[in-house]
């Protein structure tokens, strides 16, 4: 309780509040711009936070995360182009509503459900993260190794790639993490005689490259795609009848989103899809979905915003990113010399709670800013790509350089951008690569420590109940969908044979 109050007091600094307000506006603008999303925005803004105090820096990044996730709905509703992939499901009903002149009502519902979902998930974060951290105090290296492996196995089901390609991408990220001096033995690996590489490949340039520069190249390859924009005359809050119709959907999707956010690596995109599907499944009028059902917007938006709070639970309590943007925030924490994990809730509890309160604040702020400025932000979404992306490139290059003031980082960002483009072109999501890069070091260190602890008898890893539990979850994450598919096929065959 004391830590919660200290965290609130730390946030009461007027300068910090102003910064959070500015970041909220910035996040809404980023989210409203097609092609830019919370992850890219956070990666691009990470270098700007280097000179800030850790609380301010992480508050800015989490604010960008929450507000950009909400703002994706603006373009989803008005121009049928989700500002972020997490708002893809919002297009399905938001755009038809806008087409029939109800853009304001759709935006209003998106703002209300996002705010409710976001606040509920932050409450959950405040309660769950310290509990999870307390539980994690009992973890020894084998348990951490198994948990990290579980986090990586969850990569199979994220993003836009196939499970196999996601795993390959994640493994490639882990391989990249082995560049530099091995922390366990002090031996140089893959440095090719370059002193800059002894500390490893930096997270920041790689993230700027794979999220920012690769997107620029994707935009270059799809120039000329036309977008129709619907004007929004008035923004009005949803009516009482709308609330009566959607409150159960908002509550359900908030729960779903928070839970999915807590799962390692699973973020707002998966949450919004499941939230939308569940809203349709439980609706009395499922036939209206896809034609402008307000429940569809509530289901998708409450879920994607609640996933933000959920995603911060494993990020802060265990150091395992709960979503792609959380991976960037984790990188930000590391850049500032902070190591997320159980100790954060005892040694830096004030810091953790300041972050929670800032997330709570931003959920209230974007409600007002999003509604009041939706017309302006909708216009922002129409900034021509021919002006926007050269600007993104300039900030990407300077951002990549700024952290270590090294031109090698600029070249790494450019190379990562080109590799990221070709990965995406051939169906490999870049998100697992980022998460693999962050977790690779942890995975190897924990494995080495486990081997020391278990006297190099690796099979003893499977004799520890908690580690075994995480290994079982890993197997379920990897093979569960396959087993499910085979079981379903067998059931169909048995049914056909019975006829």
């Amino acid at each position: 309780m004391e830590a919660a109050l200290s965290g609130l007091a730390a946030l009461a600094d007027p300068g910090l509040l102003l910064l959070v307000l500015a970041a909220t506006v910035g996040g809404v603008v980023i989210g409203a711009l097609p092609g830019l999303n919370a992850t890219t925005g956070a990666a691009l803004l990470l270098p700007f936070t280097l000179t800030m105090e850790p609380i301010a820096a992480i508050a800015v990044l989490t604010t960008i995360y929450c507000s950009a996730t909400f703002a994706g709905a603006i373009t989803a509703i008005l121009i049928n182009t989700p500002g972020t992939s997490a708002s893809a499901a919002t297009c399905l009903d938001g755009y038809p509503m806008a087409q029939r002149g109800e853009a304001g009502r759709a935006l209003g519902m998106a703002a209300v459900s996002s705010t409710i979902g976001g606040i509920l998930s932050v409450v959950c974060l405040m309660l769950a993260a310290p509990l999870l951290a307390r539980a994690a105090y009992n973890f020894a290296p084998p348990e951490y190794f198994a948990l990290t492996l579980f986090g990586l196995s969850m990569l199979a089901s994220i993003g836009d790639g196939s499970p196999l390609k996601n795993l390959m991408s994640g493994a490639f990220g882990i391989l990249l993490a082995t560049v530099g001096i091995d922390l366990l033995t002090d031996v140089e690996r893959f440095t090719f005689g370059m002193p800059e590489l002894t500390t490893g490949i930096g997270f920041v340039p790689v993230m700027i490259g794979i999220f920012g520069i690769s997107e620029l190249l994707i935009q270059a390859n799809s120039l000329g795609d036309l977008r129709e924009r619907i004007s929004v005359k008035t923004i009005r809050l949803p009516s009482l009848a709308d609330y009566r119709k959607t409150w159960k959907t908002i509550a359900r999707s908030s729960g779903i989103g928070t839970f999915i956010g807590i799962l390692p690596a699973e973020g707002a995109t998966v949450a919004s899809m499941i939230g939308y599907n569940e809203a349709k499944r439980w609706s009395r009028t499922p036939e209206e979905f896809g034609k402008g059902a307000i429940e569809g917007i509530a289901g998708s938006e409450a879920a994607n915003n609640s996933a933000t709070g959920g995603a911060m639970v494993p990020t802060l309590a265990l150091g395992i990113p709960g979503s792609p943007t959380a991976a960037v925030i984790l990188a930000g924490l590391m850049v500032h010399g902070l190591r997320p994990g159980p100790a954060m809730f005892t040694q830096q509890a004030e810091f953790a709670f300041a972050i929670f309160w800032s997330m709570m604040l931003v959920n209230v702020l974007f409600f007002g800013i999003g509604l009041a400025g939706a017309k302006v932000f909708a216009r922002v979404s129409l900034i021509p790509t021919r002006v926007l992306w050269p600007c993104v490139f300039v900030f990407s290059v300077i951002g990549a350089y700024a952290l270590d003031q090294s031109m090698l980082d600029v070249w790494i960002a450019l190379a990562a951008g080109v590799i990221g483009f070709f990965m995406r072109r051939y169906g490999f999501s870049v998100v697992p690569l980022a998460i693999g890069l962050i977790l690779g070091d942890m995975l190897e260190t924990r494995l080495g420590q486990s081997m020391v602890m278990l006297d190099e008898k690796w099979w003893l890893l499977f004799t520890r109940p908690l580690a075994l539990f995480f290994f079982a979850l890993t197997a379920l994450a990897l093979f569960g969908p396959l087993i499910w598919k085979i079981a379903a096929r067998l059931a169909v065959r048995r049914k056909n044979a019975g006829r």
Partner: protein
Amino acid sequence: MSTVTEIARRYWLPAVIAAFCAAVFWAANYFERVPPILKRGIQPSDFPQLVSCLIIFLSLLLALGKEQPKPKPLSREFLLSLALMVGFIVVATIDLFLALGAFAASLSALWGERRVAALLGVGLALPVGAFLLFDQVFRIRFPRGLLTSIWYG
């Protein structure tokens, strides 16, 4: 299409990935080995080799799986944008901000921007503004070049 071309089209991607990982595996053989007392559980080469083997195995699964859809052809704008990026790398050796300005304006023009004010904005005002912001506010020192040396003196 001949069978050879078809096989090449189908298997080139997993083959390239597997070859890259085989090269990584081979390169890891040359890492210094530490005596058992210092190795702290695993040798420095063990983990990268383990991950390389995993990727090779996954590449095999990818090759055995269903054929991947053919991606959309690369556009002229994309290829020219990539060429501009190469140009950026060359010019950046002379001056980073000169390269940024030239790249931003050229990219904008390539993508269809014709308004002089907009081109000046992205090619001149933006790099200068970004430089001043990072130099004055964030105290970042940029590499000396043709233009930055004028500022640094």
